[in-house]
């Protein structure tokens, strides 16, 4: 055994239990998909690559729907999920984990705003062309605004551009910080690396594109 795998051998008794199980694996997996899908949508929204126009909206929606589920595996992982908000009320600033709440909350709000602006004009049209409950629903979704004048559209697209530009660092911050969570653990030699955030980001972009291909 020692010849095939020279670094196997004794482990401390407490470390025979793996503290971070599959839930901590699912969490960066999901944020990777979020960041990757968002990157694809921003290729069109920010960098104007027309070839990504057909998937830009789908990518954005994918990003939002996965993002809403991101905190779930983390909450299920915690020994005391009911205390999860402590990390936002009393964050311990030297801990990488303390930043999760802020990154995730900021980015989720940003995604909701961006999705709202992207689909606003379509929803206004739907509200005007439907009746009854559907009309009430679409009116609510558009927040009772039916302004689709060229001026309003110009404001919309300007806001969209700003949101998308702010979104790129926040999406990559959300995922890159998980790389930092692992990379900053000096007790784990297989993880400890300054390049962990970079590795995470590149695999995120690849996996996000892959998810869009599947969808």
């Amino acid at each position, binding site marked *: 055994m020692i010849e095939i795998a020279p670094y196997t051998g004794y482990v401390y*008794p*407490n470390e*025979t*239990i793996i503290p971070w199980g599959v839930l901590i694996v699912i969490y960066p997996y999901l944020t990777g998909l979020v960041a990757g899908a968002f990157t694809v949508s921003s290729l069109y929204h920010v960098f104007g690559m027309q070839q990504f126009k057909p998937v830009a909206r789908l990518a954005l929606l994918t990003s939002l729907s996965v993002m809403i589920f991101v905190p779930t595996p983390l909450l299920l992982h*915690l020994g005391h999920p009911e*205390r999860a908000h402590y990390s936002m009320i009393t964050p311990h600033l030297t801990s990488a984990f303390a930043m*999760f709440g802020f990154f995730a909350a900021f980015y989720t709000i940003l995604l909701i705003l961006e999705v709202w602006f992207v689909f606003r004009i379509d929803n206004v049209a739907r509200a005007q062309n439907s009746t009854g409950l559907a009309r009430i629903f679409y009116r609510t979704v558009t927040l009772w605004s039916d302004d689709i004048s060229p001026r309003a559209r110009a404001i919309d697209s300007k806001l969209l551009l700003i949101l998308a530009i702010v979104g790129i660092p926040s999406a990559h911050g959300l995922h890159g910080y998980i790389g930092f*969570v692992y990379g900053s*653990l000096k007790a784990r030699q297989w993880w400890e690396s300054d390049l962990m955030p970079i590795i995470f980001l590149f695999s995120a972009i690849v996996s996000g594109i892959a998810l869009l291909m599947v969808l």
Partner: protein
Amino acid sequence: MDNDRKKTERRKFLCATGKAIAGLGVVASGGSLLARGANKADAKTPADGITGSFPTPEYDWTKHRWAYGIDATKCIGCLRCVEACKAENGVAADAHHFRTWVERYVRLEGEDKTHIDSHADPRNIAASGSESEYRFDNRYNNEKVTKAFFVPKMCNHCVHPPCVQVCPVGATFRTEDGVVLIDHDYCIGCRYCVQACPYGARFFSEEKGTSDKCTWCYHRITKGLKPACVEVCPTGTRVFGDLNDSSSPISEFIRDNRVQVLKPETGNAPMCFYIGLDKDVL
């Protein structure tokens, strides 16, 4: 004109919504802070502005600087310390949760590697009959042993603890008298600290739903008693005392021996001092 009216309405709506959300946020966070303040008052934690006497009126944690010594040359591997610790602190009675444990290092003739085993080793569990009893098996009975020794391990209560650094809520902390503790009423159970400890000294307590670790029996030492493991050690392997007192056992231990610490390269500055370690000790 119609457009402008709509715009004004939208602005009003957005302003009102924004104010409402901000107001809710302030109320919510204020409420939580108040609740936390109230909890603090009950639990008498240091942030209450208690400067001297803590945690009991008779004990002043600024007057002590605790440290621990382990003489590995004296340990006979009887594991009384492990059993005493589990009984004293209510640690789960299995082979995977330890506040302190003992490792056996054996070198056999003609080999140039060291055999290491401890309580989680399946052969030791089989030898003791159950996971709630601890003993080392006789696997080296028919071997030619050239060198063998035991090394008791536990939390090193580092001066720069990496576990405290990574706690997202600050539930784990280093006290004024040099003990690293966990606030079990505040720990969220994320296990980041378990990952961060290079000594494997922390573990996750499934019963409490929080991380758990050695406290140097803080409930005992603040009353002038010794930690349970030191109390029961039959050979004087384990030494505990106050570095501020130059005649305490630990001060003499450090003065009379050439001591070393585990993994000094991590920069954690452990407060557990060893003598009689070998190059293979992890």
